[in-house]
């Protein structure tokens, strides 16, 4: 039995689904979360499902094939070496061929199907099928046991974990999925109703039931990435509600990751009780005095301009506080990630991962 050195908010979770509105930095947060989880010493698989190759760009590696590849090593933690982060870009076509091979030994048929454009066709006329194949792959990876480490349905793809057999013999300590955006997430994960138009019995039905059991279990959590702006916050709250309303007890909502937080300069100073904004005229006057004291008094308009900046910042801070209040009221753990000003690179990812560790997200 693997004994965790420290408690985190999501200790029992094996499949972390990361969603968020476009532009909130969903892929970045998924990458940082994967690194943070791998700091526990176990390998972590980071999956992307939308064919954007965002993970490859994030870790600055060539486009990922349908194969689990090592893209990074987590930093050491408490003297233990960090685990590896593997990445996989899943597409419905490859996943279908792998599925046919695993369950029907139909590799040749799979190839013929691809050649005829039939795989594309099948995933096109049955939209639920693509989602089932993608979530199915995630569920498979999350439950995959290392050889000799127990039962379980092996993997068609190569690579995958360093064969560590602690933690119940699972190949991966955790699987992180860079999932579709918030607007589509509950439909994406609700495989059961998605395939209702497909086979009512038979292997696909059985596969869907297995996948559904993983996704609705406490082993899966859906995390939301948001900014402190109205639209992404509203989508986050709607998304959490929708997950709870999914039939059969719902799907577990995870943490709320507030991304790209700017240094809340003014907010900090205000809470320290040092600065109170008054009327613009009063602030302008006070600023004139301060500017004069440091030799900037010649510019007659500077004080008014700076007072305007302060007032705008106060408005932004006020609106952000309101958004924050709404998020907190949703009752899920909230984590804050700083704005990275000069583009995301590996160093920035490590920094974000560290922030997640410190806040107990991983």
């Amino acid at each position, binding site marked *: 039995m693997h004994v965790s050195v420290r408690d985190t908010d999501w200790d029992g979770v094996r499949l972390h689904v990361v969603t968020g509105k476009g*532009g909130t930095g969903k892929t970045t947060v998924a990458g940082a979360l994967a690194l943070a989880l791998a700091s526990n010493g176990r390998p972590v698989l980071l999956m992307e499902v939308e064919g954007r190759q965002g993970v490859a760009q994030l870790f600055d590696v060539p486009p990922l094939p349908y194969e689990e590849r090592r893209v990074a090593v987590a930093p050491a933690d408490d003297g233990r070496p960090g685990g590896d982060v593997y990445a996989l870009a899943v597409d419905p076509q490859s996943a279908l061929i792998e599925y*046919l091979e695993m369950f029907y030994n139909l590799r040749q048929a799979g190839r*013929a199907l691809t050649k005829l454009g039939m795989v594309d066709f099948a995933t096109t006329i049955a939209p639920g099928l693509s989602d089932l194949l993608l979530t199915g792959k995630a569920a498979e990876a999350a439950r995959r046991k290392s050889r000799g480490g127990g039962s379980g349905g092996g993997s068609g793809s190569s690579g995958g974990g360093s064969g560590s057999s602690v933690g119940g013999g699972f190949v991966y300590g955790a699987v992180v999925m860079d999932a579709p*955006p918030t607007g589509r997430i509950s439909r994406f994960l609700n495989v059961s109703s998605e395939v209702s138009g497909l086979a009512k019995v038979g292997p696909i039905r059985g596969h869907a039931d297995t996948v559904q059991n993983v996704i609705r279990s406490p082993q899966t959590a859906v995390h939301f990435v948001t900014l402190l702006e109205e*639209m992404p916050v509203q989508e986050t709250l709607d998304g959490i509600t929708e997950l709870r309303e999914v039939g059969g007890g719902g799907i577990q909502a995870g943490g709320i990751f507030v991304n790209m937080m700017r240094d809340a300069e003014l907010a900090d100073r205000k809470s320290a009780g040092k600065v109170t904004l008054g009327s613009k005229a009063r602030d302008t006057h006070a600023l004139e*005095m301060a500017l004069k004291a440091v030799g900037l008094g010649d510019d007659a308009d500077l004080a008014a301009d*700076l007072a305007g900046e302060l007032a705008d910042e106060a408005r932004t801070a006020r609106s952000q506080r309101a958004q924050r209040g709404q998020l907190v009221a949703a009752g899920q753990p909230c984590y804050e990630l700083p704005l990275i000003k000069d583009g995301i690179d590996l160093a920035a990812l490590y920094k974000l991962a560290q922030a997640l560790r410190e806040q107990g997200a991983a």
Partner: protein
Amino acid sequence: MREPRGRGAAPLVVDNLIDDRRTRIIVCCGSGGVGKTTIAAAVGLRAAERGRRVVVLTVDPAKRLAQSMGLTSLDNTPRLVAGIRQAGPGPAGYGGHADGAGSMHAMMLDMKRTFDEIVESHADPDRAAQILANPFYQSLSSSFAGTQEYMAMEKLGQLRRADEWDLIVVDTPPSRSALDFLDAPQRLGRFLDGRLLRLLVAPARLGGRTGLKMLNVGFGIVTGAITKIIGSQLLRDVQTFVSAMDTMFGGFRERAEYTYRLLRAPGTAFLVIAAPEHDALREASYFVERLERDGMPLAGLMVNRVHRSPAARLSAARSLAAAETLQGLDDGESTALGITALRLHAELMRQAESERRLARRFTLAHPLVPVAQVPAQPDDVHDLNGLRVIGASFAPDHPPG
């Protein structure tokens, strides 16, 4: 403080675009979360208040945006937006068009409704009812990948043909890739008209053709596997659907090609929207390249939510130095306020500089693409005035970033 302008293109002046009566369609595109829908609404409002008869077609179900236009919600029918100010003579007017007949309608695409309408208008009532009740049609019209894009383009074609408006502003669907709306309609059209679909639903018909006999044997195995995967019921639904739709077949690809041609026509202008961030600008780059390759009329790039300071004459370094000096002085209230203001100013200046650097990188790669900057607002848009503030930055004399 004006930056020297290099060999780059002229700035993008949105007012010139909307004042040009030859502009009939403006397509706003870009990756998710860059404020595309808000920009589309602001462009529409600005154009209406400058005398155009505008309809804004959005695909974003944001209730807030509807409310900001004074509508409780948006649906598949264009609704008149109240409170449009008419351009008039005098200093307050825009000096726009003498007829002053500007108006604004707004609507949100309902892809299922739009698809239903196509079916209803192309088939007799019995057949239409049969198609609408088909389970495959229901899944096709409500959750099919690409249907939203197809229907957005279909709606655009309808609005254009209706000829009630002289300017249509379209907000493109939040696709997986920002390019999807160009490709999806044709992909869906190809699929619906496709031989594969016909082969699959009627493999028996192939029997007579000797050249296809060999294929047919293998095909049986393949159909078997497909049936196993997607279920025979679905296959039957597809078959019924196809035979019921037979009269409409061929029409889909044709329609997709019509809208594609419409997009390439001279009256259309593409606005690529981006946030001043690395990823959004990279997407914008891809988009610009793709539009150029397809010969689409690109008007330019709009960098949305740009930070700029009214006190740009005070550099970040000088501002921070002044804050430090202040810190050495007595701890009075004006001193504390001064330190806060100077630090905040330094941060703003740094952010503005970093945004400018990113935008410059885009311009280096695409020196001929006109660029406009839209300033960041302290908080979200709640009413027409909020949209007007954004629209004010479309004027030619608006200071450059």
